[in-house]
């Protein structure tokens, strides 16, 4: 009890220093949390992918199309429940800075295959009825302030020309890992125009999404699809949606590594700052600790006093940092939605924050404790300032 009182009194003895150190820890914990959220954002699409869906694309690379006629043949493959298809449209809204993903899809089958895109029944019906209609995620609609019925024009990069679409519905994700910044319109609309202007590009799709009857047999279904198109003009590569998404992420692996290293650096920075404060504090109090020793306090209780103060500071910083992280993430979600559609803090990150803070507190007390314990009482009493 008396130790606890000493810890609190000690921590509050130099309020400015304690406040500054707590602030430093808070900032570092905030930074660490944001970096973790960034990494989670990178991998969010993996979490959002389903085990019962396969993606088939041209085996050469995703840039090459597949003929639409494959859809019928795929439907007849054993174990296939549903087939949908689409193309990456790559349209630009006003300027390249406004980047968001836009796809031309076969609307009915796509929405059936992706039940996590939640759309009001009326909006869904409107979208399916209007060939020029499109649906967009809630975040995307909020970002540009669109309203139902608005006409949105995209400038094609892969498909030249200006393309007008009418907003017919706004979807929300069933879970928070669902990307709410996407834009879907009718593949048929794209195809009709291509037939007129670029007949060589018509009747092709970028990818097929295949729903399987039984997730256990997904791998076997993927193999039989690929073997059905073996040695044809356009061979397919079919993999689980998860593997498909991961292959995209592994491409930017180097950046993920950098972010990981940097999040370790931030921990090192807090350790240094807190260790510095603790070292200075203890140095100033060497004389007092010597008095305590003389009075009969064991070395253990003195170490406990030092450790307690160190933990007190890191715990206070951790708490402040975590509390500040939530509004910060809210702010960044709007700023970074072009790069990271999904951005949030998970429970694991908060738990890690606590672990990090505890570690920082522990490491920071090591040197001061060691110094205090080793010094002889007589020397300590002699020492000034």
């Amino acid at each position: 009890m008396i130790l606890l009182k000493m810890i609190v009194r000690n921590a509050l003895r130099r309020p400015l220093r304690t406040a500054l150190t707590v602030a430093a820890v808070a900032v570092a914990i905030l930074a660490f949390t944001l970096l973790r959220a960034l990494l989670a954002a990178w991998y969010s699409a993996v979490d959002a992918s389903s085990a019962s869906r396969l993606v088939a694309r041209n085996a050469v690379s995703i840039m090459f199309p597949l003929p639409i006629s494959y859809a019928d043949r795929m439907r007849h493959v054993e174990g296939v429940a549903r087939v949908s298809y689409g193309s990456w449209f790559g349209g630009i809204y006003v300027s390249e800075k406004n980047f968001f993903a836009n796809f031309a899809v076969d609307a009915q089958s796509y929405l059936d295959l992706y039940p996590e895109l939640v759309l009001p029944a009326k909006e869904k019906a409107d979208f399916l009825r209007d060939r020029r209609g499109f649906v967009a995620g809630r975040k995307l609609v909020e970002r540009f302030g669109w309203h139902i019925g608005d006409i949105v024009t995209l400038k094609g990069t892969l498909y030249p020309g200006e393309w007008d679409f009418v907003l017919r519905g706004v979807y929300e994700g069933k879970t928070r890992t669902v990307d709410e910044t996407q834009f879907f319109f009718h593949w048929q609309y794209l195809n009709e125009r291509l037939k007129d202007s670029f007949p060589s590009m018509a009747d092709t799709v970028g990818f097929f999404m295949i729903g399987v009857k039984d997730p256990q047999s997904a791998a076997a279904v993927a193999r039989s699809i690929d073997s059905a198109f073996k040695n044809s003009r356009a061979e397919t590569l079919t993999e689980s949606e998860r593997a498909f998404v991961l292959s995209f992420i592994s491409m930017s692996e180097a950046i993920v590594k950098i972010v990981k290293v940097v999040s370790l650096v931030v921990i090192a920075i807090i350790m240094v700052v807190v260790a510095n404060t603790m070292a200075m504090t203890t140095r100033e109090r060497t004389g007092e600790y010597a008095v305590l020793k003389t009075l009969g306090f064991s070395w253990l209780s003195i170490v406990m006093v030092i450790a307690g103060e160190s933990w007190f500071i890191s715990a206070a910083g951790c708490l402040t940092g975590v509390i500040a992280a939530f509004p910060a993430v809210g702010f960044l979600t709007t700023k970074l939605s072009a790069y990271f559609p999904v951005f949030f803090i998970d429970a694991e990150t908060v738990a890690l924050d606590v672990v990090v803070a505890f570690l920082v507190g522990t490491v920071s007390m090591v040197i001061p404790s060691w110094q205090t314990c080793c010094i002889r009482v007589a020397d300590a009493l002699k020492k000034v300032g």
Partner: protein
Amino acid sequence: MALPLAYNLRNLWTRKVATVLTASGMALVVFVFASSSMLSEGLKKTLVETGSPDNVVVVRKGATSEVDSSVERWQAHVVEALGQAAPSDDGSPLSAREVLVLVTLPRVSGGVSNVAVRGIGRHSAGLRPQVRIVQGRMPRFGAREVAVGSSIARRFAGIVPGGTVRLALDEYRIVGIMDASGTAFSSEVWADADQIMQTFRRPVYSSLVFRLSRPERFKEVQAAIEGDPRLTLKAEPESSYWRKQSELMAMFLEILGMSLALLFSIGAVIGGMVTMHAAVAGRTSEIGTLRALGFGRRHILLGFIAEALILGLAGGLAGLALASLLQFVTVSTVNFQTFSELAFSFELGARTVAESLLFSLAMGFAGGFMPALKASRMNIVEALRTA
């Protein structure tokens, strides 16, 4: 008279632990700052040096890169007929019709990535003098042969001279390794354009590249190409074409690095503040003595600020030294804009050094100003009494 610098240095030396800890906190921040700036500089340098200003790249209007561009044969013919290309050694115009496709290849480190395969014309190599064959030879025209960039050979599995690589349904023999002194061509695979077009069943080219006979007349050439109603093409100097390919990613790296460094610097500045506050508090009587000796408030203020600046500078130098080791590291990742693999290294330029040092001095100043002000405002008599 100002406080001698030696006084500050000795003070820092006496409090070794605090000095080292504070400076290393700042060093880590400068490390993050410098390395992100080096990365984005490296990316820019790689892509800027890839293009030469005298070459012109012609792509489809609205295309953001060669990957999503298409140039019809007859369009290429019309542009060539303008006769603006410089003559090569044998007198034929220095101009090449090229096709760029992306293929997926397995990486040595596991996983797959997109690699750019460039179908080249007879003058493609002549247009890019930086491309050298380091092993083997260039692919022959009319044969299923490829030369691979050195960065690709290093990072992708099974890419060895004499071996084969499967592109779409065809096997291509690897006959050479080329090095383009760190430019983007080191991350490409080259083969005969006609072979590539057959293999990938692509009836159109991606781009047309030619060397201007008179570089100063670029504007006229551009107007002739872009003004022709038959052609839906745009012309651009090759250097600016490649620079644009770096913009999105360089901006991303810069924003990421800057926001991290700024956020982290708050922690380091606070660390500096704690140290300087303690330094001031521990030397109260000393400050009183200095004042009594006749040093003015201004001198005390400047003295402590100088001490904080030295602390910051020491951190900055240590951080830079650490970051400079990164120059030996090469990063290979997919460029968001071209969607293909690109290898580039950390580039330590004068700008990065200057900015990092300024940044570290700013951190020192921010940490030291308040404590220094406090020291300068002390009352002589009270300060002397605290001993």
